[in-house]
């Protein structure tokens, strides 16, 4: 389910307040950031941009390296692990 639905339907949600909601949004953002499919999608896009000449090789390499680093972190359970 979507993030908003999840927050609104969670038991006791109204009681938890703004800080709790902020944490949920942050957690969701982190999950997406470290979701292997999202990272793969981004890697595919970099390759496409490279092939179509939208970005130069140096920029493409830089983006790929960053995405790869995040992917490796994802295999180790996310940031701050391993």
């Amino acid at each position: 389910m979507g993030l908003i639905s999840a927050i609104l339907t969670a038991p006791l949600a109204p009681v938890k307040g703004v800080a709790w909601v902020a944490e949920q949004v942050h957690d969701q953002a982190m999950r997406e950031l470290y979701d292997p499919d999202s990272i793969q999608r981004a890697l595919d896009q970099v390759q496409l941009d490279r092939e179509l000449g939208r970005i130069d090789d140096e920029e493409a390499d830089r983006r790929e390296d960053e995405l790869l680093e995040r992917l490796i972190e994802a295999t180790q359970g996310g940031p701050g692990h391993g």
Partner: protein
Amino acid sequence: MPFHVYGVTRADVVLPDKLEGLYDAPVTTVADDGLAALVSECPEAPTARRAELMAHARVLEQMIETETVLPMQFGMSMPDEQILCHDLLVAHRPRLGTLLSQLDGTVQLTVKVVYREDDALRAVLQRSPRLLQMRDRLASIPADAAHFKQAEFGQEVAAELERMGGRDGSEILGALAPLCLAHAEGRLLSPYNILNTAFLVRREARTRFDEAVGTIAEQWNEVGTVRYLGPQPPYSFVDLEAGDPAWA
């Protein structure tokens, strides 16, 4: 010194001259009774950067040109020869032997087909008078007033795009499936990705498969691009657990 393991092949394998793998280390074998692991020495804590990933794939793709190789997933690091023999080759001997026989004479070829955005959306609209009408109606309403209706329109377009992609993907798969021993469908990461499939193809059937892919690229050129990869080791067709595959 630990070993990085690339794959498993037969002990009588002939390695290409000066084949180098991760960290430019020479690729060698560790053999046990007819089976051999393709390995190279690697640091205690190997990294997984671009260079290492590409080196792993490159070694395998070079070997598969002439040999049957069962690829390891990237990151298999074994502490020494004894453990490697015992925990890989001996422990899984029957399964490894079976896989090697089954996969002899085959390679993996991967076909990915992606719609070009504008061409695909154009196709969606041109096939649906209703959606075309929605678009025309929305064009006459100022953007901020039509927010909700735009989203509705977008949702219908996306649904139609997915339907179209599902049908087109099936059609392409239908054209290629008869030319392979087996296929394994991969994940489609957007509604524009309509095929992402690994095909197990007999070596002697490669030219025919190449031609079929070329034909598909030509036929689908108006709306999409085809990415054709291989020959690859059978990444999608090896498993230490599973039972006999249908093609064996």
